[in-house]
Protein backbone atom coordinates (compact mmCIF):
# COMPACT_ATOMS: atom_id res chain seq x y z
CA UNK A 1 0.00 0.00 0.00
CA UNK A 2 1.41 3.34 -0.98
CA UNK A 3 2.08 6.14 1.49
CA UNK A 4 -0.39 8.34 -0.39
CA UNK A 5 -3.22 5.88 0.27
CA UNK A 6 -2.23 5.57 3.95
CA UNK A 7 -2.16 9.36 4.36
CA UNK A 8 -5.47 9.82 2.54
CA UNK A 9 -7.18 7.11 4.56
CA UNK A 10 -5.68 8.45 7.79
CA UNK A 11 -6.99 11.94 7.06
CA UNK A 12 -10.40 10.55 6.18
CA UNK A 13 -10.43 8.45 9.38
CA UNK A 14 -9.37 11.43 11.48
CA UNK A 15 -12.25 13.46 10.07
CA UNK A 16 -14.76 10.65 10.51
CA UNK A 17 -13.72 9.74 14.04
CA UNK A 18 -12.66 13.18 15.25
CA UNK A 19 -14.20 12.89 18.71
CA UNK A 20 -12.57 9.51 19.48
CA UNK A 21 -9.25 10.76 18.16
CA UNK A 22 -9.47 13.88 20.32
CA UNK A 23 -10.32 11.88 23.43
CA UNK A 24 -7.33 9.58 22.86
CA UNK A 25 -5.03 12.55 22.26
CA UNK A 26 -6.24 14.28 25.45
CA UNK A 27 -5.75 11.07 27.46
CA UNK A 28 -2.20 10.72 26.12
CA UNK A 29 -1.57 14.39 26.74
CA UNK A 30 -2.75 14.32 30.36
CA UNK A 31 -0.66 11.25 31.17
CA UNK A 32 2.44 12.78 29.61
CA UNK A 33 1.69 16.15 31.25
CA UNK A 34 1.72 14.73 34.77
CA UNK A 35 4.90 12.78 34.08
CA UNK A 36 6.65 15.76 32.45
CA UNK A 37 5.70 18.04 35.33
CA UNK A 38 7.22 15.65 37.87
CA UNK A 39 10.32 15.39 35.72
CA UNK A 40 10.58 19.19 35.52
CA UNK A 41 10.40 19.56 39.31
CA UNK A 42 12.93 16.80 39.83
CA UNK A 43 15.28 18.27 37.25
CA UNK A 44 15.12 21.71 38.87
CA UNK A 45 15.69 20.38 42.38
CA UNK A 46 18.67 18.43 41.14
CA UNK A 47 20.06 21.54 39.49
CA UNK A 48 19.45 23.55 42.66
CA UNK A 49 21.37 21.11 44.87
CA UNK A 50 24.24 21.03 42.39
CA UNK A 51 24.41 24.81 42.27
CA UNK A 52 23.92 25.28 45.99
CA UNK A 53 26.67 22.84 46.87
CA UNK A 54 29.26 24.31 44.59
CA UNK A 55 28.33 27.89 45.47
CA UNK A 56 29.26 27.18 49.05
CA UNK A 57 32.79 26.25 48.07
CA UNK A 58 35.31 24.87 50.57
CA UNK A 59 36.74 26.29 53.75
CA UNK A 60 40.07 24.63 54.61
CA UNK A 61 41.05 25.11 58.28
CA UNK A 62 44.73 24.73 59.05
CA UNK A 63 46.22 23.45 62.29
CA UNK A 64 47.47 26.09 64.72
CA UNK A 65 50.95 24.66 64.39
CA UNK A 66 51.18 25.32 60.65
CA UNK A 67 54.28 27.47 60.14
CA UNK A 68 53.80 30.78 58.31
CA UNK A 69 56.25 29.81 55.54
CA UNK A 70 54.03 26.85 54.63
CA UNK A 71 51.09 29.15 53.76
CA UNK A 72 52.31 30.14 50.23
CA UNK A 73 53.14 26.48 49.50
CA UNK A 74 49.64 25.38 50.53
CA UNK A 75 48.15 28.30 48.57
CA UNK A 76 49.99 27.15 45.42
CA UNK A 77 48.97 23.57 46.03
CA UNK A 78 45.30 24.50 46.41
CA UNK A 79 45.35 26.74 43.34
CA UNK A 80 46.81 23.89 41.31
CA UNK A 81 43.95 21.53 42.12
CA UNK A 82 41.56 20.82 39.23
CA UNK A 83 38.31 22.79 39.31
CA UNK A 84 39.58 25.43 41.75
CA UNK A 85 38.75 28.93 40.57
CA UNK A 86 40.08 31.16 43.38
CA UNK A 87 41.82 30.69 46.71
CA UNK A 88 41.74 33.30 49.48
CA UNK A 89 43.87 33.09 52.63
CA UNK A 90 42.16 34.13 55.87
CA UNK A 91 44.63 34.78 58.66
CA UNK A 92 43.56 34.32 62.32
CA UNK A 93 43.42 38.13 62.65
CA UNK A 94 41.15 38.46 59.63
CA UNK A 95 38.95 35.67 60.96
CA UNK A 96 38.77 37.42 64.33
CA UNK A 97 37.77 40.68 62.62
CA UNK A 98 35.06 38.88 60.68
CA UNK A 99 33.74 37.37 63.88
CA UNK A 100 33.66 40.79 65.54
CA UNK A 101 31.81 42.24 62.57
CA UNK A 102 29.38 39.35 62.69
CA UNK A 103 28.69 39.80 66.38
CA UNK A 104 28.10 43.55 65.94
CA UNK A 105 26.67 44.83 69.28
CA UNK A 106 27.67 41.65 71.07
CA UNK A 107 31.35 41.99 70.19
CA UNK A 108 32.13 42.76 73.82
CA UNK A 109 32.11 39.02 74.49
CA UNK A 110 35.42 38.83 72.62
CA UNK A 111 37.04 41.31 75.04
CA UNK A 112 40.36 39.98 76.35
CA UNK A 113 40.52 37.09 73.92
CA UNK A 114 43.67 36.56 71.89
CA UNK A 115 42.98 37.75 68.31
CA UNK A 116 44.96 34.76 67.08
CA UNK A 117 42.77 32.16 68.78
CA UNK A 118 40.97 31.30 65.53
CA UNK A 119 42.78 28.94 63.15
CA UNK A 120 44.11 30.21 59.81
CA UNK A 121 42.09 29.05 56.81
CA UNK A 122 41.74 29.10 53.03
CA UNK A 123 38.47 29.86 51.23
CA UNK A 124 38.40 27.81 48.03
CA UNK A 125 36.01 28.91 45.28
CA UNK A 126 35.03 26.18 42.86
CA UNK A 127 34.46 26.50 39.13
CA UNK A 128 30.79 25.59 38.90
CA UNK A 129 30.83 24.85 35.22
CA UNK A 130 33.16 21.89 35.55
CA UNK A 131 32.49 20.86 39.10
CA UNK A 132 29.87 18.58 40.59
CA UNK A 133 28.84 17.86 44.11
CA UNK A 134 30.42 14.41 44.09
CA UNK A 135 33.75 15.87 43.00
CA UNK A 136 33.52 18.53 45.69
CA UNK A 137 33.17 15.84 48.33
CA UNK A 138 36.14 13.91 46.95
CA UNK A 139 38.23 17.08 46.85
CA UNK A 140 37.34 17.91 50.44
CA UNK A 141 38.31 14.40 51.50
CA UNK A 142 41.63 14.66 49.65
CA UNK A 143 42.52 18.05 51.19
CA UNK A 144 41.44 16.77 54.60
CA UNK A 145 44.27 14.22 54.51
CA UNK A 146 46.98 16.87 54.22
CA UNK A 147 48.96 17.05 57.51
CA UNK A 148 48.60 20.85 57.80
CA UNK A 149 44.80 20.67 57.50
CA UNK A 150 42.66 20.24 60.59
CA UNK A 151 39.22 20.31 58.96
CA UNK A 152 37.51 20.93 55.64
CA UNK A 153 34.03 22.43 55.58
CA UNK A 154 31.72 22.63 52.61
CA UNK A 155 28.25 22.94 54.09
CA UNK A 156 27.97 19.17 54.53
CA UNK A 157 24.91 19.37 56.73
CA UNK A 158 22.95 21.46 54.24
CA UNK A 159 24.04 19.44 51.28
CA UNK A 160 23.38 16.14 53.01
CA UNK A 161 19.91 17.30 54.00
CA UNK A 162 19.21 18.45 50.49
CA UNK A 163 20.66 15.28 49.07
CA UNK A 164 18.60 13.07 51.31
CA UNK A 165 15.52 15.06 50.32
CA UNK A 166 16.53 14.68 46.70
CA UNK A 167 17.00 10.93 47.19
CA UNK A 168 13.52 10.71 48.67
CA UNK A 169 12.14 12.83 45.85
CA UNK A 170 13.97 10.72 43.26
CA UNK A 171 12.29 7.60 44.67
CA UNK A 172 8.98 9.46 44.70
CA UNK A 173 9.46 10.50 41.07
CA UNK A 174 10.51 7.00 40.07
CA UNK A 175 7.60 5.32 41.84
CA UNK A 176 5.13 7.92 40.57
CA UNK A 177 6.73 7.69 37.15
CA UNK A 178 6.33 3.92 37.03
CA UNK A 179 2.76 4.17 38.35
CA UNK A 180 2.00 6.94 35.88
CA UNK A 181 3.49 4.96 33.02
CA UNK A 182 1.35 1.95 33.98
CA UNK A 183 -1.75 4.10 34.41
CA UNK A 184 -1.09 5.86 31.13
CA UNK A 185 -0.42 2.51 29.44
CA UNK A 186 -3.65 1.12 30.81
CA UNK A 187 -5.74 4.15 29.91
CA UNK A 188 -4.19 4.64 26.46
CA UNK A 189 -4.33 0.92 25.65
CA UNK A 190 -7.99 0.78 26.67
CA UNK A 191 -8.85 3.96 24.79
CA UNK A 192 -7.20 2.49 21.70
CA UNK A 193 -8.92 -0.84 22.29
CA UNK A 194 -12.25 0.98 22.47
CA UNK A 195 -11.41 2.83 19.25
CA UNK A 196 -10.62 -0.46 17.52
CA UNK A 197 -13.75 -2.00 19.03
CA UNK A 198 -15.89 0.93 17.84
CA UNK A 199 -14.57 0.38 14.33
CA UNK A 200 -14.76 -3.38 14.42
CA UNK A 201 -17.50 -3.53 11.78
CA UNK A 202 -15.40 -1.42 9.45
CA UNK A 203 -12.42 -3.70 9.98
CA UNK A 204 -14.56 -6.77 9.35
CA UNK A 205 -15.85 -5.31 6.10
CA UNK A 206 -12.31 -4.48 5.04
CA UNK A 207 -11.22 -8.04 5.63
CA UNK A 208 -14.28 -9.20 3.75
CA UNK A 209 -13.32 -7.33 0.60
CA UNK A 210 -9.75 -8.61 0.71
CA UNK A 211 -7.82 -5.97 2.62
CA UNK A 212 -4.43 -7.15 3.80
CA UNK A 213 -3.44 -6.67 7.43
CA UNK A 214 -1.03 -3.91 6.48
CA UNK A 215 -3.80 -2.08 4.61
CA UNK A 216 -6.01 -2.24 7.70
CA UNK A 217 -3.26 -1.45 10.20
CA UNK A 218 -1.49 1.30 8.25
CA UNK A 219 -3.89 4.18 8.95
CA UNK A 220 -4.43 3.06 12.55
CA UNK A 221 -0.70 3.11 13.24
CA UNK A 222 -0.32 6.45 11.49
CA UNK A 223 -3.17 7.85 13.58
CA UNK A 224 -1.48 6.50 16.73
CA UNK A 225 1.75 8.21 15.66
CA UNK A 226 -0.10 11.52 15.28
CA UNK A 227 -1.86 11.03 18.63
CA UNK A 228 1.45 10.30 20.39
CA UNK A 229 3.13 13.30 18.77
CA UNK A 230 0.26 15.72 19.39
CA UNK A 231 -0.42 14.42 22.90
CA UNK A 232 3.19 14.74 24.05
CA UNK A 233 3.66 18.03 22.17
CA UNK A 234 0.62 19.48 23.88
CA UNK A 235 1.79 18.24 27.30
CA UNK A 236 5.27 19.72 26.84
CA UNK A 237 3.69 22.95 25.64
CA UNK A 238 1.63 23.18 28.83
CA UNK A 239 4.70 22.39 30.97
CA UNK A 240 6.57 25.16 29.09
CA UNK A 241 3.80 27.65 29.90
CA UNK A 242 4.01 26.62 33.58
CA UNK A 243 7.79 27.01 33.43
CA UNK A 244 7.50 30.55 32.03
CA UNK A 245 5.01 31.38 34.77
CA UNK A 246 7.38 30.08 37.48
CA UNK A 247 10.24 31.96 35.88
CA UNK A 248 8.19 35.14 36.05
CA UNK A 249 7.41 34.46 39.71
CA UNK A 250 11.05 33.93 40.70
CA UNK A 251 12.36 36.96 38.83
CA UNK A 252 9.58 39.19 40.20
CA UNK A 253 10.12 38.22 43.83
CA UNK A 254 12.94 39.58 46.00
CA UNK A 255 12.90 36.41 48.06
CA UNK A 256 13.17 34.03 45.11
CA UNK A 257 15.45 36.11 42.91
CA UNK A 258 18.46 33.83 43.41
CA UNK A 259 16.56 30.73 42.34
CA UNK A 260 16.89 29.83 38.69
CA UNK A 261 14.19 27.72 37.08
CA UNK A 262 15.34 25.49 34.24
CA UNK A 263 13.21 23.98 31.49
CA UNK A 264 13.63 20.35 30.49
CA UNK A 265 16.67 19.91 28.28
CA UNK A 266 16.23 18.78 24.66
CA UNK A 267 17.23 15.13 25.27
CA UNK A 268 14.48 14.87 27.92
CA UNK A 269 11.92 16.43 25.59
CA UNK A 270 12.88 14.16 22.71
CA UNK A 271 12.79 11.12 25.00
CA UNK A 272 9.29 12.04 26.26
CA UNK A 273 7.98 12.54 22.70
CA UNK A 274 9.60 9.32 21.47
CA UNK A 275 8.24 7.31 24.41
CA UNK A 276 4.77 8.77 23.88
CA UNK A 277 4.80 7.89 20.18
CA UNK A 278 6.17 4.40 20.83
CA UNK A 279 3.54 3.93 23.47
CA UNK A 280 0.63 4.85 21.21
CA UNK A 281 1.93 2.97 18.18
CA UNK A 282 2.74 -0.21 20.12
CA UNK A 283 -0.60 -0.03 22.00
CA UNK A 284 -2.43 0.23 18.69
CA UNK A 285 -0.33 -2.51 17.11
CA UNK A 286 -1.14 -4.87 20.01
CA UNK A 287 -4.87 -4.07 19.90
CA UNK A 288 -4.92 -4.50 16.12
CA UNK A 289 -2.92 -7.71 16.31
CA UNK A 290 -5.44 -9.13 18.77
CA UNK A 291 -8.25 -8.28 16.39
CA UNK A 292 -6.54 -9.38 13.20
CA UNK A 293 -5.44 -12.77 14.47
CA UNK A 294 -9.10 -13.73 15.11
Amino acid at each position, binding site marked *: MSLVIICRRTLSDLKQHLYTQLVTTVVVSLSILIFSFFTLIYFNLHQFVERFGTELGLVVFLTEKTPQEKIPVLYQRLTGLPGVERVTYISPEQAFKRLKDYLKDEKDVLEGIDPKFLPPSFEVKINRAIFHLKKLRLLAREIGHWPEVSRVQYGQTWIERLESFLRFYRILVLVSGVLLVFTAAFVVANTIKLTVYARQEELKVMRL*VGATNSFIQGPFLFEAFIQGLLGSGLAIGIVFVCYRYLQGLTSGSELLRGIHVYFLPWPYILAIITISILFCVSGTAISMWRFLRQ
Partner: protein
Amino acid sequence: MAFSQPSLLPDYIEAIFFIMFFKGSPVIIRLQKVTKRYPPDNTVFSDIDLEIERGEFIFLTGPSGIGKTTMLRLLFCAERPTSGEIWIDGVALSSVSNSQIPYLRRKIGMIFQDFRLLSDHTVFDNVALSLEVTGLKREQSRDRVVKVLEGVGLAGKMRQYPFQLSGGEQQRVAIARAVVNRPAIVLADEPTGNLDQERTNEVMMLMEELNARGATVVFATHDDRLYKNTHRRIVKL
Protein backbone atom coordinates in the same frame (compact mmCIF):
# COMPACT_ATOMS: atom_id res chain seq x y z
CA MET B 1 -25.19 -4.38 -15.92
CA ALA B 2 -22.03 -3.16 -17.60
CA PHE B 3 -18.88 -4.43 -15.98
CA SER B 4 -15.55 -3.26 -17.32
CA GLN B 5 -12.43 -5.24 -16.62
CA PRO B 6 -9.34 -3.11 -16.04
CA SER B 7 -6.17 -4.63 -14.66
CA LEU B 8 -6.21 -5.32 -10.94
CA LEU B 9 -2.62 -6.38 -10.49
CA PRO B 10 -0.89 -3.74 -8.38
CA ASP B 11 1.71 -6.09 -7.00
CA TYR B 12 3.41 -9.30 -7.86
CA ILE B 13 1.72 -11.34 -5.15
CA GLU B 14 -1.66 -10.69 -6.62
CA ALA B 15 -0.28 -11.55 -10.04
CA ILE B 16 0.88 -14.93 -8.75
CA PHE B 17 -2.56 -15.54 -7.27
CA PHE B 18 -4.25 -14.46 -10.46
CA ILE B 19 -2.23 -16.98 -12.42
CA MET B 20 -2.93 -19.63 -9.79
CA PHE B 21 -6.65 -18.97 -10.10
CA PHE B 22 -7.30 -18.96 -13.79
CA LYS B 23 -6.16 -22.37 -14.84
CA GLY B 24 -9.19 -22.91 -17.02
CA SER B 25 -10.41 -26.12 -15.36
CA PRO B 26 -14.19 -26.66 -15.74
CA VAL B 27 -14.52 -27.33 -12.00
CA ILE B 28 -14.06 -24.10 -10.08
CA ILE B 29 -15.10 -25.28 -6.59
CA ARG B 30 -14.44 -28.75 -5.30
CA LEU B 31 -15.10 -30.15 -1.85
CA GLN B 32 -13.83 -33.56 -0.81
CA LYS B 33 -15.03 -35.20 2.39
CA VAL B 34 -15.37 -31.83 4.10
CA THR B 35 -16.38 -31.97 7.74
CA LYS B 36 -16.94 -29.06 10.07
CA ARG B 37 -17.15 -29.67 13.77
CA TYR B 38 -17.19 -27.17 16.63
CA PRO B 39 -15.97 -28.16 20.05
CA PRO B 40 -16.90 -30.01 22.11
CA ASP B 41 -18.87 -32.19 19.71
CA ASN B 42 -21.12 -30.13 17.49
CA THR B 43 -20.87 -31.50 13.97
CA VAL B 44 -22.36 -29.06 11.47
CA PHE B 45 -21.88 -31.37 8.46
CA SER B 46 -19.62 -34.24 7.62
CA ASP B 47 -18.02 -35.84 4.57
CA ILE B 48 -19.45 -33.37 2.06
CA ASP B 49 -18.40 -34.00 -1.56
CA LEU B 50 -19.33 -31.33 -4.08
CA GLU B 51 -18.16 -30.07 -7.44
CA ILE B 52 -19.31 -26.77 -8.94
CA GLU B 53 -18.44 -25.96 -12.53
CA ARG B 54 -17.24 -22.63 -13.79
CA GLY B 55 -20.18 -20.42 -14.72
CA GLU B 56 -22.68 -22.53 -12.82
CA PHE B 57 -25.45 -21.04 -10.64
CA ILE B 58 -26.32 -23.28 -7.73
CA PHE B 59 -28.69 -22.93 -4.82
CA LEU B 60 -27.39 -24.13 -1.49
CA THR B 61 -30.49 -24.94 0.51
CA GLY B 62 -31.67 -26.45 3.74
CA PRO B 63 -33.40 -25.28 6.90
CA SER B 64 -31.92 -22.59 9.11
CA GLY B 65 -28.97 -23.77 11.17
CA ILE B 66 -28.08 -26.62 8.81
CA GLY B 67 -24.70 -25.07 7.94
CA LYS B 68 -25.23 -23.04 4.74
CA THR B 69 -23.43 -19.99 6.14
CA THR B 70 -20.67 -22.20 7.56
CA MET B 71 -20.21 -23.74 4.12
CA LEU B 72 -19.84 -20.29 2.52
CA ARG B 73 -17.44 -19.24 5.28
CA LEU B 74 -15.30 -22.28 4.48
CA LEU B 75 -15.26 -21.34 0.79
CA PHE B 76 -14.36 -17.79 1.75
CA CYS B 77 -11.56 -18.92 4.09
CA ALA B 78 -13.22 -17.25 7.06
CA GLU B 79 -12.97 -20.66 8.70
CA ARG B 80 -11.06 -23.86 8.02
CA PRO B 81 -12.69 -27.29 7.73
CA THR B 82 -12.11 -29.76 10.54
CA SER B 83 -11.21 -32.36 7.93
CA GLY B 84 -11.34 -32.78 4.18
CA GLU B 85 -10.12 -30.48 1.44
CA ILE B 86 -11.54 -27.61 -0.57
CA TRP B 87 -10.16 -26.53 -3.93
CA ILE B 88 -10.97 -23.16 -5.46
CA ASP B 89 -10.04 -23.28 -9.14
CA GLY B 90 -7.45 -25.93 -8.48
CA VAL B 91 -5.91 -24.30 -5.41
CA ALA B 92 -6.19 -26.35 -2.22
CA LEU B 93 -7.31 -23.99 0.52
CA SER B 94 -5.27 -25.91 3.09
CA SER B 95 -2.19 -24.62 1.26
CA VAL B 96 -3.34 -20.99 1.45
CA SER B 97 -1.63 -19.23 4.34
CA ASN B 98 -3.38 -16.58 6.44
CA SER B 99 -1.39 -13.83 4.75
CA GLN B 100 -2.57 -15.05 1.32
CA ILE B 101 -6.26 -15.10 2.24
CA PRO B 102 -6.88 -11.41 1.33
CA TYR B 103 -5.66 -12.11 -2.22
CA LEU B 104 -8.00 -15.09 -2.46
CA ARG B 105 -10.94 -13.01 -1.22
CA ARG B 106 -10.42 -10.42 -3.94
CA LYS B 107 -11.39 -13.13 -6.42
CA ILE B 108 -14.55 -14.03 -4.53
CA GLY B 109 -17.45 -11.65 -4.11
CA MET B 110 -19.43 -12.10 -0.90
CA ILE B 111 -22.99 -10.88 -0.34
CA PHE B 112 -24.76 -11.06 3.04
CA GLN B 113 -28.32 -10.90 4.27
CA ASP B 114 -27.44 -7.92 6.52
CA PHE B 115 -25.57 -6.08 3.72
CA ARG B 116 -22.52 -5.26 5.91
CA LEU B 117 -22.10 -1.75 4.55
CA LEU B 118 -20.07 0.96 6.26
CA SER B 119 -22.68 3.32 7.63
CA ASP B 120 -20.37 6.34 7.75
CA HIS B 121 -19.19 5.90 4.15
CA THR B 122 -21.08 6.99 1.06
CA VAL B 123 -22.43 4.48 -1.44
CA PHE B 124 -19.52 5.32 -3.74
CA ASP B 125 -16.94 4.80 -0.96
CA ASN B 126 -18.49 1.50 0.07
CA VAL B 127 -18.12 0.14 -3.44
CA ALA B 128 -14.72 1.79 -4.05
CA LEU B 129 -13.34 0.08 -0.92
CA SER B 130 -13.14 -3.24 -2.79
CA LEU B 131 -10.83 -1.64 -5.33
CA GLU B 132 -8.95 0.49 -2.84
CA VAL B 133 -7.77 -2.56 -0.89
CA THR B 134 -6.11 -3.83 -4.06
CA GLY B 135 -4.00 -0.68 -4.18
CA LEU B 136 -5.94 1.16 -6.87
CA LYS B 137 -6.04 4.91 -6.42
CA ARG B 138 -9.36 6.71 -6.29
CA GLU B 139 -8.89 8.27 -9.72
CA GLN B 140 -8.19 4.85 -11.21
CA SER B 141 -11.25 3.22 -9.68
CA ARG B 142 -13.78 6.06 -10.15
CA ASP B 143 -15.01 5.08 -13.64
CA ARG B 144 -15.33 1.48 -12.69
CA VAL B 145 -17.34 2.18 -9.53
CA VAL B 146 -19.64 4.52 -11.42
CA LYS B 147 -20.28 1.89 -14.10
CA VAL B 148 -21.04 -0.80 -11.55
CA LEU B 149 -23.42 1.53 -9.68
CA GLU B 150 -25.11 2.38 -12.97
CA GLY B 151 -25.46 -1.35 -13.53
CA VAL B 152 -27.34 -1.83 -10.25
CA GLY B 153 -29.43 1.29 -10.81
CA LEU B 154 -27.85 3.44 -8.13
CA ALA B 155 -25.91 5.95 -10.19
CA GLY B 156 -28.01 8.78 -8.77
CA LYS B 157 -27.36 7.79 -5.15
CA MET B 158 -23.59 7.62 -5.11
CA ARG B 159 -23.19 10.44 -2.58
CA GLN B 160 -25.82 9.11 -0.21
CA TYR B 161 -25.17 7.09 2.91
CA PRO B 162 -26.54 3.56 3.46
CA PHE B 163 -29.04 4.71 6.08
CA GLN B 164 -30.61 6.98 3.47
CA LEU B 165 -31.38 3.98 1.24
CA SER B 166 -34.09 1.31 1.32
CA GLY B 167 -33.20 -2.31 2.17
CA GLY B 168 -33.29 -3.29 -1.50
CA GLU B 169 -31.02 -0.42 -2.44
CA GLN B 170 -28.60 -1.31 0.33
CA GLN B 171 -28.45 -4.88 -0.93
CA ARG B 172 -27.75 -3.57 -4.43
CA VAL B 173 -24.84 -1.54 -3.02
CA ALA B 174 -23.56 -4.72 -1.35
CA ILE B 175 -23.85 -6.57 -4.68
CA ALA B 176 -22.01 -3.75 -6.47
CA ARG B 177 -19.25 -3.94 -3.86
CA ALA B 178 -19.02 -7.72 -4.27
CA VAL B 179 -18.76 -7.61 -8.05
CA VAL B 180 -16.77 -4.44 -8.73
CA ASN B 181 -13.62 -6.57 -8.69
CA ARG B 182 -15.13 -8.79 -11.38
CA PRO B 183 -14.76 -11.92 -9.22
CA ALA B 184 -14.84 -15.39 -10.70
CA ILE B 185 -17.06 -16.59 -7.87
CA VAL B 186 -19.94 -14.86 -6.08
CA LEU B 187 -21.11 -16.28 -2.76
CA ALA B 188 -24.48 -15.00 -1.59
CA ASP B 189 -25.63 -15.77 1.93
CA GLU B 190 -29.42 -15.30 2.10
CA PRO B 191 -29.16 -12.00 0.22
CA THR B 192 -32.94 -11.66 -0.04
CA GLY B 193 -33.67 -12.59 3.57
CA ASN B 194 -34.49 -9.02 4.59
CA LEU B 195 -36.28 -7.93 1.41
CA ASP B 196 -39.89 -7.89 0.20
CA GLN B 197 -40.94 -9.81 -2.91
CA GLU B 198 -40.34 -6.94 -5.33
CA ARG B 199 -36.81 -6.23 -4.03
CA THR B 200 -36.14 -9.97 -3.93
CA ASN B 201 -36.96 -10.18 -7.64
CA GLU B 202 -34.62 -7.27 -8.36
CA VAL B 203 -31.78 -8.97 -6.51
CA MET B 204 -32.47 -12.29 -8.25
CA MET B 205 -32.33 -10.56 -11.62
CA LEU B 206 -28.98 -9.02 -10.73
CA MET B 207 -27.63 -12.40 -9.65
CA GLU B 208 -28.84 -13.99 -12.91
CA GLU B 209 -27.17 -11.20 -14.85
CA LEU B 210 -23.91 -11.70 -12.98
CA ASN B 211 -24.05 -15.38 -13.78
CA ALA B 212 -24.81 -14.65 -17.44
CA ARG B 213 -21.62 -12.59 -17.53
CA GLY B 214 -19.59 -15.56 -16.45
CA ALA B 215 -19.50 -15.51 -12.66
CA THR B 216 -20.04 -18.74 -10.78
CA VAL B 217 -22.81 -18.08 -8.23
CA VAL B 218 -23.40 -20.00 -5.03
CA PHE B 219 -26.69 -18.79 -3.59
CA ALA B 220 -27.49 -19.94 -0.06
CA THR B 221 -31.16 -19.72 0.90
CA HIS B 222 -33.83 -21.52 2.89
CA ASP B 223 -36.60 -19.89 0.83
CA ASP B 224 -37.81 -22.57 -1.60
CA ARG B 225 -39.84 -20.00 -3.61
CA LEU B 226 -36.57 -18.74 -5.03
CA TYR B 227 -35.58 -22.03 -6.65
CA LYS B 228 -38.70 -24.19 -7.04
CA ASN B 229 -39.40 -23.05 -10.62
CA THR B 230 -35.82 -22.81 -11.73
CA HIS B 231 -33.62 -25.07 -13.82
CA ARG B 232 -30.63 -24.34 -11.55
CA ARG B 233 -28.89 -27.08 -9.61
CA ILE B 234 -30.02 -27.34 -6.03
CA VAL B 235 -27.66 -28.63 -3.34
CA LYS B 236 -29.43 -29.62 -0.14
CA LEU B 237 -27.41 -29.77 3.02
